[in-house]
């Protein structure tokens, strides 16, 4: 696939297929993610975008009927090798979900929790403060850290979830349609935050919003259902966002981006 990589990927899917029982939802995806860049995954509903995202983080296997084939190379190892600890993989790859899902604990505890279970031995107050500052939430919550995380507004909750994810110092942050439940202003704040975070983190974002993909991402991967009628999610085209949105190589990509289907 077309991209300007020097082959030094933050994480790389290698012929990755994901099955729900017998059904192959995602077929042989090869996708190398550039470090410290924002990669957007776009595509019509049901084409396996979220499944790929979860497969990158060993989250799929929590559902009993799901299994994967192929490799996901992260930190020099295939994370699906038997002696790789999925718990450690999950810790190093953070995730922000579609709907804000803060724990029903205090704001402080939401941020501190992940660090605490991972054996953090530093100054917790400082970690919470610096993390909330990186998530652009500190100014709004610094005087009510003991309030429940669920008492915040939707946009604040989502930034709290981002703070929670970066508090454990992951290498990569996955975002599964993080703005789909938010209004345009809250969305804008999250997008600005993503730009800031991209200085330190590799970000992969699944989005339904083409403008968002064009606005925030450096690279774009377009997924669609395979054309052979088996309805498996396939990576159709992958490249720099500015190329994808101006001169897509494939007809199907162009049709999707211009809104002719999907």
């Amino acid at each position: 696939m077309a991209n300007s990589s020097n082959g030094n990927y933050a994480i790389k899917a290698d012929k990755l297929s994901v099955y729900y029982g017998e059904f192959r939802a995602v077929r042989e995806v090869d996708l190398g993610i550039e470090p410290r860049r924002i990669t957007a995954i776009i595509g019509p509903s049901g084409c396996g975008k979220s499944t790929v995202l979860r497969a990158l983080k060993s989250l799929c296997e929590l559902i009993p009927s799901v299994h994967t084939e192929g490799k996901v190379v992260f930190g020099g190892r295939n994370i699906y090798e038997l002696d790789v600890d999925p718990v450690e993989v999950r810790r190093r790859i953070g995730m922000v979900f579609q709907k804000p899902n803060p724990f029903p604990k205090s704001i402080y505890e939401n941020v501190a929790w992940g660090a605490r279970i991972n054996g953090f031995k530093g100054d917790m107050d400082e970690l919470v403060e610096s993390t909330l500052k990186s998530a652009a939430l500190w100014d709004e919550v610094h005087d009510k850290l003991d309030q429940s995380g669920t008492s915040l507004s939707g946009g604040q909750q989502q930034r709290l979830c981002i703070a929670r994810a970066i508090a454990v110092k992951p290498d990569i942050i996955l975002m599964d349609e993080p703005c789909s439940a938010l209004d345009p202003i809250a969305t804008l704040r999250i997008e600005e935050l993503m730009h800031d975070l991209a200085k330190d983190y590799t970000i992969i974002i699944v989005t339904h919003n083409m403008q968002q993909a064009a606005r925030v991402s450096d690279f774009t991967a377009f997924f669609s259902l395979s054309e052979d009628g088996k309805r498996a999610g396939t990576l159709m085209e992958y490249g720099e966002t500015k190329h994808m949105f101006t001169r897509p190589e494939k007809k199907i990509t162009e049709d999707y981006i211009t809104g002719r289907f999907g």
Partner: protein
Amino acid sequence: MNKTYLRLTVRKPSLNAPIVASQSDPNAKVPVQQMPDLRRRPRLRELTINGFLFLCGFLSIFITFGIVYELGKESFLFFRNRQWSSTNKPLAADINPEQTVFEVEASGTPLQTDMNYRIEGEIIHIDAIDGTSLTVQRGFDDSQPAAHRAGLTLEAELRPNLLEFITGTEWAPHNGKFGILPLLTATLIVSGVAIVVAVPLGLATAVYLSEYASPRAHNTLKPILEILAGVPTVVYGFFALTFMTPLLRSIFGADTVNIYNMASAGIVIGILILPFVSTVSEDALSAVPRSLREASYALGATRLETALRVVVPAAFSGIAAAIILAASRAIGETMVVAIASGAGPNFTFNPFEAAETMTGHIVRISGGDMSYNSVDYNSIFAVGLMLFVMTLILNVISQRIVRRFREIYE
């Protein structure tokens, strides 16, 4: 053609009403739209069912109030009226209305000076006792002095009061001892043991079923637990007496453990209420949204960390409610304690001793041949009211906790 169409689709105001559209425009191809009939229709069935459902709800509330009223009234009368208890001490000879010194037999319970006694309808006040000879005031408390035949027994006057009821450590109503503490402590010890058994086991079961069990294990275990809830309590009672008690005696020694003891009954009640704790807690755990678990796993939490530090706290209100409901079930449980924990009030904190709980006492008194309007009989209403107040308090606490800690998940 046109007319048929209209008859099928709209309600004509009356048979003779002109169909305006077709008259004014006979060539119209599209039938002109008629106004829909929006008149309110009577729905008899809805009304009937509505009324029936209201009656059902009303009936259950009415019955509850009826029970509370009856219990409250009898308890009130118990504390307000003087109670009489037979001394089994008969008159040695006939007496006439004026006689103030007379003989009684030596049998029966001893009499006391400065106390009131009743012979038939007449109340007497004993001023002095000399062996079997009594010096009394006749016609006390406005009762009518009368002649009494030899052999009639004296009844002692008992005056239960609320303070003694709550603080007294001896319960023997026929002897004027109205302290409910022995019954209360026995109840608390038995339910305490039950809770200690049921909460860890029930919670662990709930966590296993909701967080760990495969669908197959879940579908096997859940019905078995429900069978546990369906076993008749009398069976549990004999299980306690014939299995748990010998087991305890073989572990702790027959010298320490009474044949009838509170520990055995408590453990078995714990098993009995385990399904309540586990099924209600499991419902609470399952109601915690998947997204919270995923968030926890996504942070690198293990299954145990996720279960104990995210899911259980998030379901806290439901679990607390389950525990409190199970506790009030344990307090009210009767059959097991009636069979296994012994008869007779005993003020003790040793769970290996026999002691009668409030429910056990009520069932023994009301099931025996105690006559209506005797002190013992009247006293069980007060005990029952105490029981009711305890479970009511627990229910109120449970509701408070649910309201205070509930998280609303979409």
